[in-house]
């Protein structure tokens, strides 16, 4: 059993990463909860944003946390257009066709990135990337802290949007009762598109936050899509609080597994957790109670 | 021994009593109708016999053997065929293929099942539509297909769930005639639930009346329509207007 400081570091590091995971999963959860779409291209969107951050850093010397703001806007708009102009036609088609559509997009984006940038890893090396905060025996990466802070801010903004704005409430209405929303005259296609845009924006922000924590390769997509799904299912499909809690749970368990077992066993824990949860409580931690 | 015995059967859903202590029996080769106002528990009782629900209390016996609580496919294997109130045809399959699926219950080979299916379709007047996709049928024909499919399984007891709903009077009379001849020629016993009194009076040898989940009357149609308890709760002036069919 490693010494307490190591465990504490792992827990803190895992929590911080988990917050970013939570933001990423939040996007997926919102899209699924509202539009009822399983976004298999979620990870690829994040990877795309990461490459954007890399490009902005190498080309324009922009710090990823600045790029983040632009990325949110760009991806938000792109997501809106994608949903409104394209995916919307598939809303009423069978579920498996929607899944296949998103899988197709995922393949195209992911391999498009491979075509454009090649398979080699890219990274962003800011001046503070290797610095850490020292709190007694604890060592916390600055980049990780900033990432978590950015994620918290983004999440808070999202939460405020859904809670306090008219559009946000309308979107929640759509999620609760799509037919009723239509009958009440809500512009459902527009609201779906806003939701997708927000989901894409959140994942772009998460990507820019993560870009200093990992190496960027074109093949990151599927791994993060799966991770987002694990988080969403652990937390409860369609529950945003659940996505955040799930993110934390996964972040911490990954970090601990990396410390206590071996680093490569990290994802095993996530998937193991997924399996156990699907068997024991398929509706997730925050999902509605079993009938 | 009666073919079907329902003894003191009760079923509640989350505290709401759907059926309470219902008892009746059905003699072989006869037609029994289960009637009662909406919410009386007819469909629940039906589904209890068909194996959709398990009774909380009581016993259901087919030819002396208990079938209460058996899963639906075992109930069918025991000799009970059923139709659904909202018809459930295999939409993508042809009429003949629908019937073959049913016939495979009693036949070992597909060719044997096909022969049985053809015969059953003939009986139900659907032979001309054998190759039509089930989704393209009219409502009346879909009802017949439901009956044909259930009949193809070679049941001793046929459960018909509100087969007449939504049909025009001529269609009702046609279906009544078909059911009568099916009962006669196949020797099958029929238990049906119905709102359409015209059909009930034309078909039933025995009527069982349900109200608030309890059996309030049992007997021949002629006596049921005069039973004060029945008239009181349900039939009203319909009894005077409705006449036993020819």
């Amino acid at each position, binding site marked *: 059993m490693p010494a307490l400081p190591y465990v504490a570091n792992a827990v803190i590091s895992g929590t911080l990463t988990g917050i970013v995971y939570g933001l990423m999963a939040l996007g997926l959860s919102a899209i699924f909860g509202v539009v009822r779409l*399983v976004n298999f291209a979620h990870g690829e969107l994040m990877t795309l944003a990461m490459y954007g951050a890399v490009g902005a850093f190498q080309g324009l010397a922009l710090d990823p946390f600045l790029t983040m703001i632009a990325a949110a806007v760009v991806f938000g708009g792109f997501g809106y257009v994608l949903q409104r102009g394209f995916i919307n036609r598939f809303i009423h*088609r069978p*579920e*498996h*066709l929607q*899944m296949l*559509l998103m*899988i*197709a*997009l*995922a*393949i*195209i984006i*992911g*391999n*498009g*990135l*491979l*075509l454009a940038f*090649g398979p080699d890893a890219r990274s962003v090396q800011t001046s503070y990337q290797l610095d850490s905060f020292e709190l007694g025996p604890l060592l916390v990466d600055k980049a990780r802290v900033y990432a978590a802070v950015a994620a918290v801010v983004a999440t808070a903004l999202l939460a405020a949007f859904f809670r306090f704005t008219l559009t946000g409430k309308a979107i929640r209405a759509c999620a609760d009762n799509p037919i009723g929303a239509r009958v009440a005259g809500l512009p459902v296609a527009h609201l779906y598109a806003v939701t997708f845009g927000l989901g894409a924006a959140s994942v772009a922000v998460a990507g820019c936050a993560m870009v200093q924590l990992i190496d960027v390769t*074109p093949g990151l997509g*599927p791994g993060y899509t*799966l991770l987002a*799904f*694990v988080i969403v*299912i652990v937390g409860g499909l369609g529950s945003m609080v659940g996505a955040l809690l799930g993110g934390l749970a996964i972040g911490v368990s990954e970090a601990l597994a990396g410390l206590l077992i*071996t680093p*490569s*066993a990290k*994802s*095993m824990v996530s*998937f*193991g957790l*997924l*399996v156990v949860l*699907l*068997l024991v409580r*398929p509706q997730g931690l925050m999902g509605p109670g079993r009938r | 021994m009666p073919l079907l015995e329902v003894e003191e059967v009760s079923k509640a859903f989350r505290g709401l009593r759907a059926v309470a202590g219902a008892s009746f029996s059905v003699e072989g080769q006869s037609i029994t109708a289960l009637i009662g106002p909406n919410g009386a528990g007819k469909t629940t009782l039906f589904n209890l016999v*068909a194996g959709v629900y398990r009774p909380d209390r009581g016993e259901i016996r087919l030819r002396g053997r208990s079938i209460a609580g058996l*899963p*639906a*496919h075992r109930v*069918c*294997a025991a000799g009970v065929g059923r139709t*659904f109130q909202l018809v*459930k*045809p*295999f*939409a*993508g*399959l042809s009429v003949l*293929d629908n019937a*073959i*699926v049913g016939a*495979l*219950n009693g036949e070992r080979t*597909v060719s044997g099942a096909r022969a049985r299916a053809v015969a059953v379709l003939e009986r139900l007047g659907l032979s001309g539509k054998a190759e039509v996709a089930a989704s393209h049928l009219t409502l009346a024909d879909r009802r017949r297909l439901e009956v044909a*499919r*259930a009949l193809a*399984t070679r049941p001793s007891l046929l459960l018909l769930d509100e087969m007449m709903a939504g049909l025009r009077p001529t269609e009702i009379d046609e279906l009544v005639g078909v059911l009568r001849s099916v009962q006669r020629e196949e020797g099958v016993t029929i238990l049906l639930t119905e709102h359409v009194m015209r059909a009930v009076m034309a078909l039933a040898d025995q009527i069982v009346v349900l109200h608030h989940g309890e059996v309030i009357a049992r007997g021949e149609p002629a006596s049921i329509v005069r039973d004060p308890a029945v008239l009181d709760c349900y039939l009203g002036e319909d009894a005077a207007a409705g006449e036993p069919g020819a």
Partner: protein
Amino acid sequence: MTSDRPADAGDRRRLAPITAFTVAVALLALPLVGSSYLVSVATLALYLAYVGQAWNVMMGFAGQLSLGHSLYVGLGAYVAAGIFVHFGVGPWAGLWLAVAICSAVGAFIGLLAFRLRISGVQLSLLTVAFAELARIGFDHLDWFGGPGGLFLRVADRNHIDLLGFRGPPAMYYYAMLALAAGALGLCAFLLRRRPGYYWRAIREDEIAAQALGIDTFRWKMLAVVLSSAMTAIAGVFFAFYNNSLFPEQIFGFGRSIEIILGPVIGGLGTLFGPVVGAVALVLLGDGTTEILAKAGVELPGARQVVHGLLLLLVTIYLPNGLWPPLARALGVRPRRL
């Protein structure tokens, strides 16, 4: 169905057997006249057609979208390769063990799906999770080579060793042809008999099927187990054809997607869909790579982008796949699973 003049209808009906005969002759003669590159591409197409057909059994018959079928390919491959490398047990015996293990795993997943009623997105994700668990697991199992891979003796191309399944590319080609044709035949056979009727009924309306005496749990389990068993065989072939196995590669999510692309593009739930889809994928995908190579360009990822575009176009414009319109052109009714 067409209502042309009788002469047209007759010509159309003759087209199908003629096409079938031509295709059969071409397939049998291919290794004799084609280059070794063509043979390897054709083997790949047949492999995809076979494994797609195996996957289609689970989707078409049991209605479950498995996005983790690479699990069975990988398990089958590693089991057969493992006992070959460590104990010298040949592939024909290893085959049985692989099938047994994959069937058991398939049955387990079936139990989860049908007894615990996990379906739709959750089930698809569960299948992915199992494949990922296998990937990570095998990365840590040194007996199977770990992340560095498991290597088999490379085949002597000039000597046909049927027992050890080593030989020239043509041998592998004919083996895969036999498998693909066998799978097609098996599915066609099953479709005509009781299993076909019952599976279609369950797919259409499970409750109505139960009311007709069908034990839907048993039949759905049968489809899932059959699917996993068939896929296991593909894994064994893969091991002895490629001679090297890496967990990252064989259990990967991309592999699972590759498996479903064929049937989806060809036509979900149809008999010939997986074949048509596999051919389209290989023609367009590897065709593109070939053209680029001839132009002196090597672009990793190009093939997959083509696959993705094909999937996208089919999903938008031909959601029932490429086979139904093709079938109509040949005057054949597309047989649905």
